[in-house]
């Protein structure tokens, strides 16, 4: 099963989600190759090797500088065909989903998305995909090669194997139609501190906080725990908190070790976005809030009282 993992980068580092997929692919027992695409990304190859890839292909070209999908499809399609990869895996993101889907069309290759696990069963690759608001899990597969898969973000943890990769440069030829979309302004970070994709601890706030100013309660607790702040769809839409922190939108799922939901009732989109977290603690004054159905620890109480107290206790514990 010659496998290629698409490794996305952001601000000079391979993203955690991609490295997690490299780790999973290595665990499935093969030599795993990875591909980096961008401008000035060659220096990231070493880090990818350290995380388990035995070969790293590098497509380093100004044409790939902007995080746009179509030039990447051009490069990837050639690479998959010339090297004969039968499996191509992606950690899901806004960019990766568009790259994977474009590649599926280009190669007439099957794409399964939103996978939360991969296993080999009698030599056959099987993926697991939650469906219907995660109430069932479908086992999915591929009828032909290459097999393409998008892994739900944050599903697999990266693993430093300490290895080093053989680095191969890949020629970059971009088709005319792929050059037509042009990035005129690149996103700048709106959020401070660790991003919610990478954080081990997330403290999230919802409508139950009452007003935007009360997000400071959530921020204080996140700071005390060394975690990131997240927000629900409802409060982002209401303009209380930046979009970059939103959990539960397409392709945006988080899976920290600890997720603390403050004043969040727990709509289905939110559930799908965070339920693969390690431990979920919910604080809400409504004992019937749906979030309690998928929390490990539910606190029925007023966030305005419980959260500051919790922050205080966590701080005291850390300083003792």
């Amino acid at each position: 099963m010659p496998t290629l993992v698409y490794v996305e980068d952001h601000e000079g580092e391979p993203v955690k989600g991609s490295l997690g997929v490299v780790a999973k692919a290595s665990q499935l027992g093969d030599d795993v190759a990875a591909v980096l695409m961008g401008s000035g990304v060659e220096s990231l190859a070493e880090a990818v090797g350290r995380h388990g890839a035995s070969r790293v292909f590098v497509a380093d070209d100004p044409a790939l500088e902007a995080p746009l999908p179509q030039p990447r499809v051009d490069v990837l399609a050639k690479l998959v065909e010339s090297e004969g990869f039968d499996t191509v895996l992606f950690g899901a993101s806004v960019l990766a989903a568009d790259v994977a889907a474009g590649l599926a069309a280009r190669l007439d290759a099957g794409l399964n998305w939103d996978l939360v696990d991969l296993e080999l069963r009698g030599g056959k690759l099987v993926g697991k995909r939650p469906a219907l608001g995660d109430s069932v899990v479908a086992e999915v597969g591929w009828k032909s090669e290459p097999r393409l898969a998008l892994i739900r973000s944050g599903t697999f943890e990266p693993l430093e194997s300490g290895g080093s990769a053989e680095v191969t440069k890949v020629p970059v030829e971009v088709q005319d139609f792929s050059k037509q979309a042009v990035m005129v302004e690149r996103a700048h970070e709106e959020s401070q501190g660790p991003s919610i994709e990478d954080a081990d601890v997330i403290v999230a706030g919802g409508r139950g906080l009452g007003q935007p100013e009360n997000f400071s309660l959530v921020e204080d607790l996140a700071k005390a725990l060394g975690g990131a702040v997240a927000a629900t769809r409802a409060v982002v839409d209401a303009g209380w908190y930046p979009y970059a922190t939103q959990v539960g939108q397409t392709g945006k799922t988080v899976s920290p070790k600890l997720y603390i939901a403050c004043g969040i009732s727990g709509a289905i989109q939110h559930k799908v976005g965070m339920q693969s977290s390690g431990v979920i603690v919910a604080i809400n004054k409504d004992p019937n809030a749906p979030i309690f159905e998928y929390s490990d620890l539910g606190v029925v109480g007023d966030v305005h009282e419980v959260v500051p107290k919790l922050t205080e206790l966590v701080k005291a514990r850390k300083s003792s």
Partner: protein
Amino acid sequence: MKVAVCVKEVPDASAPKRLDPQTFRLDRSVAGALNDFDTHAIEEGLQLRDKGGEGEVVAVLMGPERAADSLRKALAIGADRAVHVSDEGLAGSDLVATSKALAKALERESADVILFGQQAADSDGAVLWAAVADRLRLPVISQAAGLEVRDGKVKVKRQTEYGYDVIEAPVPCVVAVSDAINEPRYPSLKGIMGAKKKPQETVSLADLGLSADEAGEDGSRTEVYALGNPPSRGDRERIEADGGSAAEKVVEYLAGRKLI
């Protein structure tokens, strides 16, 4: 300006959803509804048409016969014309097969802008536009939270994990809109009454020049083997207490699991 909006019928949000234990396909015998996310694409299409002063909005739907109701809703909201890609041979189509049929249908339209909603409410799929764009060899921009068309160019504000990008592309192009882009209008009574009179066309595989092995299950590259239950979250605990002692119990709980 001519805008094509790709829409889908999904099971009604209020209907209990199930997967057919034999085929593993979504049971579509329950009441269907126009995919909510697609109403944002329709709204954006209507705004583009109206700002441009002339042109039309064509709603394109692939789905079984009964999905015509959802297409009629798109007309009631304000689309000018409807194309229904419908053929028994299309049942069970995956991304590869669906994008092929839809691209063929869109090719016939030669729209300036092709719009999609941000995801399908039933499969949570958020990939179709990129596959369709690749087949049409057109530029694609997804997650559009803002869209302007000026001087033959679209300018899109794209939402990503990291904030907002601004991307430009010449028309014709494919844009998938986020549901943050607008507040969709509801169909008016006049719109509902008038929908039946608007032109509606049904297109078969043969009309699209596709053979049976390019569509449906035969044309698909993925399959579903089995359905199971998600892993249980295990034991849950609940604390019902006032501020002070509840916080102490949470700290105890977290410390016991070495989370702090």
